[in-house]
């Protein structure tokens, strides 16, 4: 319901806005009144909302295309398209017409002491020359060392030495590729030896010095919290939300070894309820829009279940009023 306010000689009409935004509109009008302006206009622009997406996997291609009304962003695993055959390029160009593409990679090894090999940079360079890279992410991990290709993401020690290594590698990537990736927190079953920082303090040091953005993986936080007997919400609360531009949602499973249970992030399970609760908590901390992406790497559920997970994320986003930004002219 529009409301009238008198401010000096100005009659201010505030359109149908939530009450807590009236104060901001009046602040702008007060500046105009003090400047003796005859009239003031305030343009209210709704900020873009958080967006929802999913990782592109051929096994769920038809689900993705059938549910494009629920999917804004599509995450592309760079390594799955390295060969860049004509078919690959055609596929990506087609998907680019339907979705916002987010490129995600696992092979950079940004925290590795031997740096990023030339052959890897060459692959990324070729890929990035063909597509506009508005969003690219990799991980806080090392993936090779002393000639061993680990083939998976390993957690580095959280200490000063690896902070310096990571920053050096980021600088090198920026020089060679013209881009730096948003970095994602990883899950680990082994608490990294030789660590002198907590995981979050270590990541914060890199993000603050490097200035890049972060991909927040909710399930990785949950897995690490379970495996190292920490409170997942307290851990989540320690993350630098100002740097977060993307969020990953997935599910893992408990595995038993000797008498202990460990939480494995296998991306093959449905998102657990606690994952949605942690997302809700994260959304309450964010003051800018982010992209929220479901990762599913196998054991694909029925379409209805996957669709319900997308809907649940949309519902969590909509529970909060869309943030509104005010500009005065």
């Amino acid at each position: 319901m529009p409301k009238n306010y008198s401010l000096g000689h100005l009659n201010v009409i505030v359109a149908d806005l939530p009450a807590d935004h009236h104060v901001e509109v009046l602040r702008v009008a007060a500046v105009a009144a003090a400047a003796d302006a005859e009239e003031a206009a305030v343009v209210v622009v709704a900020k873009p909302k958080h967006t929802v997406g999913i990782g592109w996997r051929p096994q769920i291609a038809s689900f993705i295309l059938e549910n494009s009304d629920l999917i804004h962003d599509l995450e592309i695993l760079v390594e799955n398209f390295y060969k860049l055959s004509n078919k690959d390029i055609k596929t990506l160009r087609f998907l680019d017409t339907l979705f916002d593409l987010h490129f995600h990679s696992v092979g950079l090894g940004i925290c590795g002491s031997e740096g990023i090999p030339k052959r890897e940079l060459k692959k990324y360079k070729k890929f990035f020359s063909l597509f506009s890279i508005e969003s690219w992410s990799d991980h806080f991990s090392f993936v090779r060392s002393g000639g061993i290709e680990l083939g998976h993401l390993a957690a580095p020690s959280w200490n000063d030495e690896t902070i310096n290594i990571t920053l050096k590698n980021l600088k090198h990537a920026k020089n060679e590729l013209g881009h730096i990736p948003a970095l994602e927190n990883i899950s680990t079953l082994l608490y990294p030896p030789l660590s002198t920082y907590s995981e979050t303090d270590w990541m914060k040091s890199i993000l603050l010095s490097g200035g890049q953005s972060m991909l927040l993986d909710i399930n990785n936080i949950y897995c690490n919290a379970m495996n190292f007997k920490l409170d997942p919400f307290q851990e989540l609360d320690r993350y630098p939300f100002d740097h977060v531009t993307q969020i990953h949602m997935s599910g893992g499973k408990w595995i038993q070894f000797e008498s202990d249970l460990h939480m494995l992030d296998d991306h093959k399970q449905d998102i657990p309820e606690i994952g949605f609760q942690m997302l809700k908590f994260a959304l309450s901390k964010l003051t800018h829009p982010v992209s929220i992406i479901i990762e599913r790497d196998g054991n694909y559920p029925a379409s209805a279940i996957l669709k319900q997970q997308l809907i649940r994320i949309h519902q969590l986003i909509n529970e909060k009023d869309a943030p509104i930004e005010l500009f005065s002219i």
Partner: protein
Amino acid sequence: MSYSVFENTMAKLLTNKRYLEEFKKNPQTALIALDLTQDEKKALIDINQDQLTIAAISFRKKRTQHLSHSHGSIIRLFFRNLFPKK
């Protein structure tokens, strides 16, 4: 230099079952010839062996799946590690 040796030792523990078993039997002996600081040696000796074992099992499994998927056959993976590109 020594951190890269430390990192490489971690990589071997996570991917090489035989090396892991030798290390678990006698960590001091497994590390004796390596150019590591006392702190790095201590960190490896004090490692939580249950966590290391389960991480290595998971790692070897995922590694085989991932590399066979993304880099070609297991045979190619074998030769890739035998003759790493520099």
